[in-house]
């Protein structure tokens, strides 16, 4: 009996507590809510600096970019979110296409070059990542690898590290190659790549860099910052960055941007724009990009020390909006080839 009594007390206690929290968490007026698809670790220091400056509190609601986009779509006018932050231009553009965002005013948007924001300013790119090659300097000669398309050469059989084909960055990279070359060439390349990796793909970019550093693999296709993250912890690792496709007729390196958008139904437009204005200012740009050794999108703000400076190499001329518009085409191609 005592057990049952205790149990019923507990149950009624719970009901009481739940009843109290029915109303949910209501945001106060001077608080911005950001749906964030980017790691807290990189975003938090920047928004804290913003709060310190302006007194505006920022609540980060972190989850996967795509899941948050779905949520925004389902919530419609009831969304509590004021801003949406994502690591992938593809996701941002999909949100713009679904009319989930509102254009940012021109004088704020114009701080960022037009190729790194939506044509209608419904999203603004904040930092960029480069799709590069990493090599083991003991096993690969400098100049042996010139292009990402070289990776399909049979001589790399068993020596390559790439991520699985569901990786956001991998898909975005292939979209750029598909746009810069043509379908036939990209398909042949994927088939060569598939033969070379022989079923062995990696789930994480950091594991690829690790495997290359230890000589288990000789070369890998990664985002540039993973190389520098590894070098920061192991300064003597025998790895080097290779900037591919830099010849006169080559298409250049694939870039992808992380960016931010104001949701269509936000009621705090002014505050939201204030945050974006901070993020595109020189100070905000430096903090936002440097946290992850990425490239600031604003011109004239340098990247982290070790990273090859933007402008010192050629970047593929594929507009960022294509990463969203062509994503399904890329996924179809990857599935057709059967990339693991």
């Amino acid at each position: 009996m005592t057990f049952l009594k205790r149990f019923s007390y507990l149950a009624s206690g719970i009901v009481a507590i739940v009843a109290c929290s029915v109303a949910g968490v209501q945001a106060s007026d001077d608080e911005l809510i950001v749906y964030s698809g980017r790691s807290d670790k990189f975003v938090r220091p920047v928004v804290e600096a913003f709060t310190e400056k302006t007194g505006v509190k920022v609540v980060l609601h972190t989850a996967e970019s795509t899941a948050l986009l779905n949520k925004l779509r389902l919530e419609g006018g009831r969304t509590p979110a004021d801003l949406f932050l994502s690591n992938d231009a593809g996701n941002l553009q999909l949100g713009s296409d679904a009319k989930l965002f509102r254009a940012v005013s021109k004088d704020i948007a114009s701080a960022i070059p037009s190729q790194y924001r939506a044509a209608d300013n419904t999203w603004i790119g904040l930092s960029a990542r480069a799709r590069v090659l990493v090599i083991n300097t003991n096993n690969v000669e400098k100049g042996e690898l010139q292009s990402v398309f070289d990776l399909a050469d049979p001589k790399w059989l068993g020596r390559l590290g790439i991520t699985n084909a569901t990786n956001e960055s991998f898909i975005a990279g292939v979209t750029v190659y598909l746009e810069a070359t043509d379908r036939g060439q990209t398909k042949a390349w994927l088939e060569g790549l598939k033969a070379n990796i022989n079923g062995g793909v990696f789930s994480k970019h950091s594991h690829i860099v690790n495997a290359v550093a230890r000589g288990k693999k000789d070369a890998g296709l990664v985002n540039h910052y993973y190389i520098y993250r590894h070098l920061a912890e192991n300064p003597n690792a025998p790895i080097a960055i290779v900037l591919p496709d830099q010849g006169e007729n080559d298409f250049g390196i694939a870039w992808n941007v992380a960016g931010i958008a104001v949701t269509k139904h936000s009621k705090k437009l002014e505050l939201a724009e204030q945050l974006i204005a901070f993020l595109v200012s020189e100070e905000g740009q430096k903090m936002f990009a440097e946290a992850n050794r990425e490239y600031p999108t604003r011109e004239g703000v340098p990247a982290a020390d070790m990273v090859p400076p933007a402008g010192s190499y050629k970047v593929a001329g594929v507009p960022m909006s294509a990463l969203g518009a062509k994503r399904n085409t890329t996924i179809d191609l990857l599935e057709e080839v059967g990339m693991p």
Partner: protein
Amino acid sequence: MVVLVAAIPLLFVVYSSFELSQAQWIGLWSSRLPGLLWNTLSLAILVAIGCFVLGVSTAWLITRRDFVGKRLAVWLLVLPLTIPTYVFAHIYTVMLDDEGWLGSVWLAVFGSSVPMPDLYNVFGVALILSLAGFSYVFLLVRAALMRSNVVFEEAARIHGATPLQVFARISLPLLRPAIAAGLAVVMLHVLSDFGAVSMLRYQTFTLSIYLQMSGRFDFQAAAGLSLVLVSLSLTFLVLERFFRSRQRYYSSGQSRAVRPKHATRGEQLLIWGWLGLVALFAFGLPVAWMLVWTWHAWIEQHITREFWGYVFNSGFVSFSAATIAVVLAFPIGLYHARRPTLSSNTFLHLSNVGFVLPGPVVALGVITFVLATMPVLYGGFIALVMAVVVRFLPLAVQSQEASMQQLTPSVEQAGRILGAGPLENLWRVTLPMIRGGLISAWVLVFIDVLKELPATLLLRPIGFDTLPVRIWIEASEEMLELAAPAALMLVVGTFPAIWVMMRGEMAKRQVE
């Protein structure tokens, strides 16, 4: 009403898949389904075998032999439940690396000529899921063995059956409801598992559904696949019921409690050898890994005040959801155990839907429902609790029902004859008798909610992070080492719940 709420995600799925044209269905059918079916089924069968071997053998040893450190052994065999499959999968891939703990041992023993076992295939995934899930079978079989009547076994022994024959022909068939219930829980976990399969890139229905939704925003195809998955799971559950329903076991009045035999020294060594091996891989190694990395985090002061907030949030959600689920599950379980009719069967199976649907699908279903019918609740704590209750209600139903089936109706009838009204009878006879089932139902739901990730990620109130959410956030930037403190906290947080469950059992045995 309860069942209706549980069926919300299903309605969402059926509705969305209506939008799928016939051509799309045919495309789906020919291109993806055969592979997915084979992958999912072969995984389910391997995990069932793994959990059966691990769960039944350990439960048998624990209940039928007395040996040193038995209580410790029980704890070690239950605690793997507290480790989420995604953490399991990650830890094992790291440990099997060249420089990992297991990898370096392997290299030292076999040299580099023998290739290291690879987890990225059906056997690897099955191993991870068996280690993460066998405790369900262990718990339910152990409970049944402790309640079970030794009279039958003794009778068989007297008639000259060998111990092996007794086990195979008396004990095992008697244990069938418990084993079936345990394996059913494991199967539901396998079918809806997202953590391990995504980490090890093994394409099951759940992973494929998730990729359709997140990669392509293709709700219809995802819903179509979900529908197939649900039909698959329901078929499986109906089959399980069918095999179970042909027998009904009630413990009779003249039962005697089991007296475990004293193990000889040699036996003790063997027993601990086996239990130790299981516990080492299912709990010891992962926890040691967490401890090491938590220590690193502690030294580098990554554990801040916010961390304790996440701990509180996790505990709060799990506590509320477990309590509500147990209360809601009670009528469903009772109704079915006492009057197994067509409608009670339907209720039961419908209540299972939440569990077999992938978490993100459940979450989207609940979002749609709440926004359409009671938008006030949206974004609040209630919507979250509702989603996790829907997801884990079947766990509560399963374990309550298993204990109700063993409760002889004549006891209740006696209560009624002696003049107790239906409510009084329920309160004073039925509930106390199935107390063990209620407690374990509560604990099982508590543990699963504590580990729940996909639905929480989508539905939590703004700024309300739980421990799994934090693990996910740290891991998504490929820094899982930072997630170790949160993973360890999940294990520690479950201690009180499991302690309550164990203490309930102890008290019960003393009464008897």
